[in-house]
């Protein structure tokens, strides 16, 4: 009897899983928000550009989830490692007072080798802890953020725009990118319609480029082997693919994408937040890809794109609409409930979500 119940439940869940109702509900909800918005005095143009800017800003961070999910390492809660690399890249480029696209490019260039290094280390940890990747990832990420907090205080950066004025050492908590490479990508070939609508073309091109690169990677020999490791490690091993190596490669890839994504995020955000700032940055990215329909062990580029649009859409629209309607600022609460609710939903999905 009990078993039957469970089976029955499994069937319903499977149906819902395939149908992806959270995605549908949230898409309808988002649409509804856009419909309501003009009636309560919210400008749709501004909201739309807000959303687009945020998509360009966060897209690559969400993309950084894909390689690790595909190789069976689960959700990349260790994203802060990539983020740290991105921060170091950015700060190093700024230390030299490099500006514009060049400064941005150099930041990316500095970030990548560090991301590779951190990724390899993280990959070894992940391989040590098969089955517990997500928990380990979270805490390895947290530890590295805390460790880097000590480093920010000590690293020999000297540029007065970056360090605390009175002591001359120790990087500031928040560093403005004004005068360096603030919004260089966003403004690149940007389209402006009317006073309010703004389309960050450069960021989108860059995001699209990264998506294409990742997509292409999964068509190569290594990429195919990586997916095989994720979907059936035994199969991969039986065909001479080293599971551990593939997992490390995927972690490195995820971390590098995280680093690049962070630099893109910074240029669009206009500020660099050091110290404990990056601590929880993995969570929105994780939530976004899950919202896009990914599961713990399968993710596609379309999941990334759809997820980023939906998640960022919700984040921009809900607070302003609810604010407009109730004069209450519930943005934070909604962000917490939506993103963690999404992650919980993915973790409790049966069958498909099982990591062995």
């Amino acid at each position, binding site marked *: 009897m009990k078993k039957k119940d469970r089976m029955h439940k499994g069937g319903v869940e499977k149906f819902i899983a395939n149908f992806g109702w959270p995605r549908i509900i949230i898409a309808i909800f988002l649409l509804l928000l856009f419909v309501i918005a003009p009636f309560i005095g919210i400008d749709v143009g501004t909201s739309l550009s807000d959303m687009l800017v945020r998509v360009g800003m966060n897209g690559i961070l969400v993309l950084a989830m894909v390689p690790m999910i595909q190789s069976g390492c689960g959700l990349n809660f260790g994203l802060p490692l990539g983020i740290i690399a991105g921060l170091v890249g950015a700060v190093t480029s700024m230390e030299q007072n490099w500006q514009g696209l060049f400064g941005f490019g150099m930041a990316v260039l500095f970030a990548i080798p560090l991301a590779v290094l951190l990724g390899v280390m993280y990959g070894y940890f992940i391989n040590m802890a098969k089955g517990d990747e997500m928990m380990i990832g979270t805490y390895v990420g947290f530890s590295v953020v805390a460790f880097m907090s000590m480093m920010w205080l000590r690293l020999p950066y000297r540029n007065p725009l970056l360090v605390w004025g009175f002591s001359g050492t120790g990087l500031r908590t928040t560093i403005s990118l004004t005068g360096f490479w603030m919004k260089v990508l966003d403004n690149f070939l940007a389209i402006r319609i009317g006073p309010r609508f703004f389309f960050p073309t450069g960021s989108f091109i860059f995001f699209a480029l990264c998506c294409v690169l990742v997509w292409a990677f999964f068509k190569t020999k290594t990429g195919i082997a990586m997916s095989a490791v994720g979907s059936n490690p035994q199969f991969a091993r039986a*065909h001479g693919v080293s599971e551990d190596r593939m997992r490390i490669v995927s972690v490195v890839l995820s971390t590098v994408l995280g680093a690049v994504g962070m630099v893109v995020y910074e240029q669009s955000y206009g500020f660099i937040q050091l110290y404990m700032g990056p601590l929880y940055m993995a969570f929105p990215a994780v939530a976004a890809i899950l919202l896009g329909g990914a599961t713990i062990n399968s993710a596609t580029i379309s999941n990334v794109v759809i997820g980023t649009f939906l998640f960022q859409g919700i984040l921009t629209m809900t607070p302003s609409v609810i604010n407009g309607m109730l004069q209450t600022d519930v943005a934070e609460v909604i962000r917490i409930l939506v993103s963690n609710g999404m992650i919980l939903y993915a973790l409790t999905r049966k069958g498909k979500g099982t990591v062995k």
Partner: protein
Amino acid sequence: MTNEKPLLSMKGIQKDFLGNRVLEDINLDLAQGEILGLVGENGAGKTTLMNILFGMPVIQQTGGYKGTITLDGEEVHFSNPNDALMAGIGMVHQEFFLIPDFSATENIFLNREVTRYSLLVEIFGDRLRTLDKAAMNERVVQVIKELGVNINPDTLVSEMPVSYKQFTEIAREIDRAKIKILVVDEPTAVLTETEAEALLAVLKRLAAKGVGIIFISHRLHEILNICDRIVVLRDGKLIKDISSGQSDVKSIASWMVGHEIGDFAFHHTENHRKTENFLSIDHLKVLMPGEAVKDLCLQVHEGEILGIGGLAGQGKLGIANGIMGLFPAEGSVTLKGKSLKLNSPLDAFRAGMAFISEDRRGIGLLLTQSIGLNIAFPLMQVKGGLLKKIAGLFTWEDKKKIREITSSYIERLDIKCTGPDQSVMELSGGNQQKVCVAKVLALSPQILFASEPTRGIDIGAKHLVLSVLREINEKEGTTIIMTSSELGELRSICDRIAIVNEGKIAGILPAEAPVEDFGLLMLGE
């Protein structure tokens, strides 16, 4: 045998499983104090019969069974194992149903603990009764004494020798209030000889107390030694029900194996190149759980089809899995005089070997991926085939070539599908197996290990798979090492058949050898 009413009587038991008849008209009686030996090859229906007796949920889920079971003169129909336990039927599992970190007492009383009243019971319910360790220990000591063995009730199961674990299981079963029937499934498989003897003595003692025992084993001399009566099952039918005094090892073996020969004529290839020492396996040890290979030596000739047979659990599957690097292996494997690096699937592939796994869905296929990718994957990863360079930088999958090659195999093997892009998950078992075959054909190996290539697939697919194997053996000279539990199938396709018993080669016979000889080798007699 007495003329009283039997303790247990199963009449006309029939069971269909997904359209296959796995049990047909089984009639079986068990008297009080009788030890009944139940023998049969794997897949003969022993397990299904016992599952029916126990009311295992799997039976209900697959459509129930026909026939009646009478226990103590009353017709019973168990819908779950708990009912069977309550009615006094106990089972000692082949795999221990014990918690390693618990003591003997704790395991014996798992969820049947002797408890004492505590006040909090009134508020929070009976689960807050406290354990009465002393009473439990006392009872355990008594039960153990009854068994005539010497187990300290406080010993952790994880620290016990294997036989003691077995005794613990038996102790648990007989401590249940009114045990009438005890089913022991291959209890001696994991025991040393002295341990086994002790166990048999315990069973005899239990039988003397009036418990009816169904004893399942492959060790025929044990069966002959301990059982009053022997029942032989083959292919779901009851072949023989005979008192043990009237039978001997040889006749039981032949009843078990039967005389049926598959639909194939004997395979006689005259064109063996017969290169001696083409592939020589020396002192191979494979740590494959449940199919361990222990110090096995085997010579394979070039161009032959060598069959590997034997009962389940004896290690026949371990050979291919070990050589192909899927499970940790030791020893030496030499191919044409060159030593093969063990524990490395890639090296095995590069040496020209390929493998059709017995675990089709687990190891053989990427279920969620397309047929094309499944067929192309080994070729791509092992030989770097089906790839193209883009701008001289990236090696990319060659979609066009993959489609071509997949289509050709779909045609050649008659894979029923919507096209190369259909996901393997959606195919039937037989067609999945054909994909596995296509996968290895694409590699054009020198040596092909085929483990249970026809298990669980329909007749049509079976024929096709076997004829493809024979075809590549004849036309391309591929040496095939085929492992199968079906002796008939092996005899129909192989040149020679090696029988594995307890992790070693028990003997190699030509396919035409009499069936009894194979049976005896399988049973290690």
